[in-house]
Every structure is written in structure tokens, then in C-alpha cells.
């Protein structure tokens, strides 16, 4: 085991690090769009809207993400004649759709958790269903989604390592590549290195999502900023009448 060798090979990780970040961000963005689309559809009271979304969600949740990845990368070009110019695109689509399907349940759950009284007040105010969603329901559901979406974002980061299986050179692939030289004597430090890198990335996501959550909660009048000596956010100040 040669630490010198690991340090020397650090610059080699710059590009794979970028690839991992790219895959994570791009598939997270796709997943978010898919999650909202499917989440709204599965919340619909119309069976014709709900059913296809439900089938899509259950299919993507119920089958292996690795197989989905292979399917988009290798099977689709053969079966449908659709060839992505870069394997990374297939990776992003597979991860985005898979995590989008999972996250749609978060969206659906948060929408369902908005109190019934809010729907009734929106109706009394004569909002259209679209206005009700845009002005009342989603702004209230959004802060509730963030912690779960954060957990999924971190899982997505870790799942991004799977793209190494379809010959995209991300952190994991690079660790295998450099660690595997010289008969693999340096595998341990290289894999330890990327463990730390993944952890740092996850921590960055977590920090970002915490900030987002605080901001979103302030938007509904809850001060989520932890203050000294206070564990719970101050919500109602009683006796102000």
C-alpha cells in the first residue's frame, strides 16, 4: 500500500468527481420533474389520470435500477434503435426515472397531508383546481417534502456509482481503474478515498437541503432556525390579543 501513490493520483479524480456531480445533479433535476408530474397525477381524482401514473411508478419502483440502467444503455439502442451519444445520458435517464418514481410518492404524500380545511377554504374562495394547487396546496406541501427529498438526493448520489457499470468514468470507476493497477495492491486507499469524497458530497447536499428547508418553512411563517436553548420552532405566540 503506497499513500504517496494515492496522493499523486489525486488529480486523476478531478474529472470523475465532476462526472459524479453531473450525473447526480442532472438525474436529480430529472427526478424532481418526474416526481412532481407523477405525484400530481397519482393525486388526481380521475382514474384515467391516476392509473397510468400508478403503473409507471410501480413498474420503476418494482424493478431493479441496475437492470433499468443496462436497459437504457444497451437494450434500448438495439430494441428501439435509440442510441444515446454518451452512456452518461442513459445513466441520467435511468436514475432520474427511477428516483422520480420513488419521489413521486413523497410528493403525493405531502399533497395528501395538506389539511382538508385548506381545500375547503380554497373552494369557498372560488379558486380553480389549478389555482388551488399553485397558490395553496403546493406551497404548503413543499416544505414537508424537503427532508424526504433530501434523503433521496443522497441515495441518488450514492446510486450514481452504478453508472460505472455502463462504462462511465465516475469516481467509482476511477477508483477501480487506478486502484486496480499493479495487481490491485492500492485498492484499499483508493476506495477509502472515494468513500470520503462521497461523504463530503452527501454532506454538501444535506447542508444545502437544510438551508432550503429553513427558507421554505419561513415562507409559511415557521421560524425553523435553531436558536440557543430552544429545540422546537416558535410557532404561535399566544395571548397577543
Amino acid at each position, binding site marked *: 500500500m503506497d499513500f504517496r501513490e494515492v496522493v499523486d493520483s489525486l488529480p486523476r479524480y478531478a474529472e470523475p468527481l465532476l462526472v459524479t456531480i453531473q450525473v447526480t445533479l442532472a438525474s436529480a433535476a430529472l427526478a424532481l420533474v418526474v416526481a412532481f408530474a407523477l405525484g400530481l397525477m397519482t393525486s388526481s381524482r380521475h382514474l384515467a389520470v391516476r392509473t397510468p401514473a400508478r403503473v409507471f411508478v410501480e413498474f420503476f419502483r418494482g424493478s431493479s435500477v441496475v437492470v433499468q440502467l443496462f436497459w437504457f444503455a444497451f437494450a434500448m439502442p438495439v430494441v428501439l434503435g435509440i442510441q444515446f451519444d454518451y452512456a452518461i445520458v442513459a445513466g441520467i435517464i435511468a436514475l432520474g426515472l427511477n428516483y422520480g418514481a420513488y419521489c413521486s410518492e413523497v410528493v403525493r404524500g405531502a399533497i395528501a397531508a395538506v*389539511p382538508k*380545511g*385548506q381545500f*375547503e*377554504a380554497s*373552494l*369557498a*374562495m*372560488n*379558486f*380553480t383546481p389549478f*389555482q388551488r394547487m399553485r*397558490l*395553496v396546496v403546493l*406551497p*404548503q406541501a413543499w416544505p414537508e417534502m424537503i427532508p424526504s427529498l433530501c434523503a433521496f438526493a443522497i441515495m441518488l448520489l450514492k446510486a450514481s456509482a452504478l453508472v460505472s457499470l455502463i462504462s462511465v468514468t465516475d469516481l467509482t470507476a476511477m477508483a477501480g481503474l487506478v486502484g486496480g493497477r499493479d495487481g490491485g495492491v492500492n485498492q484499499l486507499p483508493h476506495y477509502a478515498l472515494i468513500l470520503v469524497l462521497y461523504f463530503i458530497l452527501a454532506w454538501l447536499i444535506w447542508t444545502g437541503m437544510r438551508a432550503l428547508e429553513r427558507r421554505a418553512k419561513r*415562507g*409559511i*411563517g*415557521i421560524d425553523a432556525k435553531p436558536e440557543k436553548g430552544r429545540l422546537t420552532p416558535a*410557532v*404561535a*405566540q*399566544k*395571548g*397577543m*390579543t
Partner: protein
Amino acid sequence: MQNPITDAEHRPAAERGPATGPLVRFDRVNKSFGDLTVLDRLSFDVDPGERVTLIGPSGSGKTTILRLLMTLEHVTPTKDPAAEGGVIWVEGKPLSHMEKGNRLVVANERHLRQARKKIGMVFQSFNLFPNMRVLRNVTEAQVHTLGRSKDEAEAKARELLDLVGLSAKVDNYPSQLSGGQQQRVAIARALAMDPDILLLDEVTSALDPELVADVLGVLRDVADTTSITMLIVTHEMGFARDVSNRVMMFDRGVIVEEGAPDEIFSDPREARTQDFLRAVLAE
């Protein structure tokens, strides 16, 4: 379609014969939830400017009446509305139904959107929008559903928030207000839509006792200074007595007794009313 008020075929049990016609007419309205019949061929009229209090034991259908008027619930349809009734009318036009040819059919969402414009409701649990500050709670629907300009809506909102004594709270979120303050905002929010009919559904039931007086005070002001028609479901008998012109006692979806508040509260004829009032006033 003929005006149902002058149409003898639609004459309901409660015949009041006002010059202008009733503002609200329940014509043999049925409402069941599954096997449970909440309203059984219920008929009554409310005249413009009248303030009617609905009293009665829980489960007697009072809140259902308000929810039907707000179109939060829908009547259980009858086979032939022209002959059997089962229709709610507002300002001489069907609310629960719509005219198709010269038949009445169950209203679709588009009709309901039109029809519920005249009606405002204040809820037991306030139901303010927690994601909006107080001012926006009162302006949002004015802008989005009445098409008022932002300035116009804001002027109206400030005027009403002043009326309910909350001018100082316009920039607060609902979560920063007490229950009584939230309910007063909810009253302002309902009034901002200029409804002809204001429905008050147990508006003080969720409040701490010391906050009830403020809310009732605001509603007394509204009653004194406007001619808005009110349907009130409440357990505050003193308030009912002061504010309303008429009290209707309900039990199991039918009107047991109705009359001026003084009559009902001082000298109820029906045993069920007497029992109910005794139970409520003993609290």
C-alpha cells in the same frame, strides 16, 4: 325557467311570501351519507338581509346545510327535481342544479363556480392559508377569482382588516396570530369577496373562552353595519339572540321549531327545543 318563487309547483312547506322573493330556498332537500340520512326533505326560505341561526344537537344537520350552500357537499339528487324538489335555490336560480333545456339536472363544476360567487363562509377551524401573510390571505382570492387589481384588493383588505381590528397584523403569518385573531382575519377574508350570503359555521367553537368575545364583537359589528344575509350555526345562545332575526331548531334533519329569537329562547313550545336549550344553557 320560471322563477321558482312564483311557481306554485315549487311551493315549499315554509311559505313566507316576501315581496322580493327569498334569497335562499331549500326545496325538499335530501342529503344522505351512505345509509345515514342527514336531511330529509328539508324546506325553508331565507329572505334577503335576514340573519338566521340554526341550533340543535350535534348531528342534526345544521352544518350540512351550510356546507351544501357553500357547495362543499352536494344534495342527494331526486329523480325528478321539478316534481319532487330536492333543489337549493339562491336568488331565484338553482344552486345545486342547473337548467338544461327546461329540466333541472345536477350542477356541474362550472355551474357551481358561478353559483358560489355569492356565498362566503367562515369555518370553525379558520382555515387561513398558512403560506400567506395576513394581507395576502385577504387579497389573494380577490385578485385571482374576482379579477380585481392588486391595489384595489389591497385597499379593500386593509379596510376590512381595520374593521376586524387587525390593521397592525397585516404582515404577520397566521401562525403568529392567536386563534381569535386568525378567525377575525378569516371573517375579513370572507367579506372581501362581497358575498350576499355569509355562512358562519361554529366560528367560536375552536377558540379559548377569552377570545370568543372579540370574534363575536366583530360579527355584531358586521351585522349592525351591513345588510348581509347570514346563516349562523352556533352554540353561543346569547350571540344568536342578539344578532339573529330568526332561530331554527333542528333535530335529525328536520326543523322542529322556528321563530323570533325571543320566542324560541324564552318560550319554546316544543319539548325537544326545551330539552336542548336546557342542556346548552346548563353548560
